[in-house]
């Protein structure tokens, strides 16, 4: 699945809404930097979408009761 690039405005809305839902105060002086960092992570994450992964690559952690 190809990831759709999002604009900085879209990431700004994401940040505002998720930060509020997580009770995470966000100083306005950090907002632009957080958007830039999230966009960078998004680009890198998008590069990991293809090619499709095999079932043997599932990452479920081993639980040892």
């Amino acid at each position, binding site marked *: 699945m190809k990831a759709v690039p999002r604009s900085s405005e879209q990431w700004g809305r*994401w940040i505002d809404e998720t930060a509020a839902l997580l009770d*995470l*105060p966000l100083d306005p002086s950090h907002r632009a930097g957080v958007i830039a960092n999230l966009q960078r*992570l998004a680009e890198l*994450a998008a590069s990991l979408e293809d090619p499709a992964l095999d079932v043997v690559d599932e*990452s479920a952690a081993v639980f040892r009761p």
Partner: protein
Amino acid sequence: MTIAAAGALEIGRRVRSGEWSAAAVTAAALARIEAHDGRINAFTSVIAERAVREAAAVDAAVARGEDPGPLAGVPFAVKNLFDLAGEVTLAGSASRRSSPPARRDATAVVRLRAAGAIPVGALNMDAYAYGFTTENTHFGPTRNPHDRARIAGGSSGGSAAAVAAGLVPISLGTDTNGSIRVPAALCGIFGLKPTYGRLSRVGAHLFVGSLDHIGPFARSVADLAASYDAIQGPDPSDVACAQRPIEPASLELARGAEGLRIAVAGGWFAGPQQPEVRLAVERVATALGASAEVDVPGMARARAAAFVMTGIEGGLLHLPELRRDAAGIEPLIVERLLAGALAPAHWLWQSHRVRRQVAREAREVFRRWDVLLAPATPIPAQPIGTEWVTLGGERMLARPNLGLFTQPVSFVGWPVAVVPVHGIGPLPLGVQVIAAPWREDLCLRVAAQLESLGVAAVPVAGAS
């Protein structure tokens, strides 16, 4: 041989024989730290009283005819994310100054002490180990002993600088994406990042548990191997620590590189780098007779996934503190932590899946080769405060790209020894000696061969 010039095993031999006392060795180390650390800012705390007390115990054991261990009386220091009983574990963060002191030593500290070594203090680092430069806003930058206007590398910068400057013969650091290998290279000393899961991290303040390793620094390969051997062993308290027996590497060093199939890692590792970095790899390869170049598949994906995993796991780990007091967090990392804490969970999940895929495909390279050589950093130590560098005509951020060649290798968990190469330019450089999982012995054998040939060496840098 003076105490100041002696390596760890030499100190241990002389203390065990009664030729030197642990008290005298400890006093000499404390005096060197007092005299020289102000110029490089490697230490954030010195535990002199405890060190003197433990040195007296080592001397008493020798007097009773007991063997305190191969590292008897050897002073060592730890990155300040390792617990030292009775001390506050800072993990590079000023906001942790008011935390309660550690109740016990980290497992690695316990094991070094069991081998006779004596902890003398804690060392500076990037806040929460998130960085490659040890430019710590709250505790000041650690300065490179070879040029004090430049960075020591990070995040274990204090650990590397203290050893390079001759303040202690060995130290401990951690490596998530390159934080042992980058400062070892920039400070011109030996460093070992073992296989992921080889060494216990109990009592080490984690940053990204999925990627965190611990490991030693030293000025000789024998000291590096002895330190590594001392801290090996399973630990059920660390879920990532493999239940493997101790596999001593020190006994293997004399075999050198004989019989090993060694190649230079190309592809990703031939990417942007200064010409002298390439020359350092060529010098090492020529000395080992390694002429083949091999492409390791998946390294670009490995770096991307490591970057994503680091940002998100790091952000989530520090979410409580981000909620409580973001203003108290290191300014160089707070926005990266916030972004990671707010990132979609799918990105992290996919990164872990990609890790499985890349590790499975990339390790095929070891069917044909035993050891790979690669640059440790694309550039030598930069002036403190450097934001940008230009490599191959491309302008890029200096700080994150110090990990360009280390990050993919730790992502797949392979063991790496960094060997220092001096004399190509005015500053030292490092070469990664990489082997298949659980073959630290091969990394150290090749490092020992390079040391015996004089290709890798560690002159004590003048901190004075």
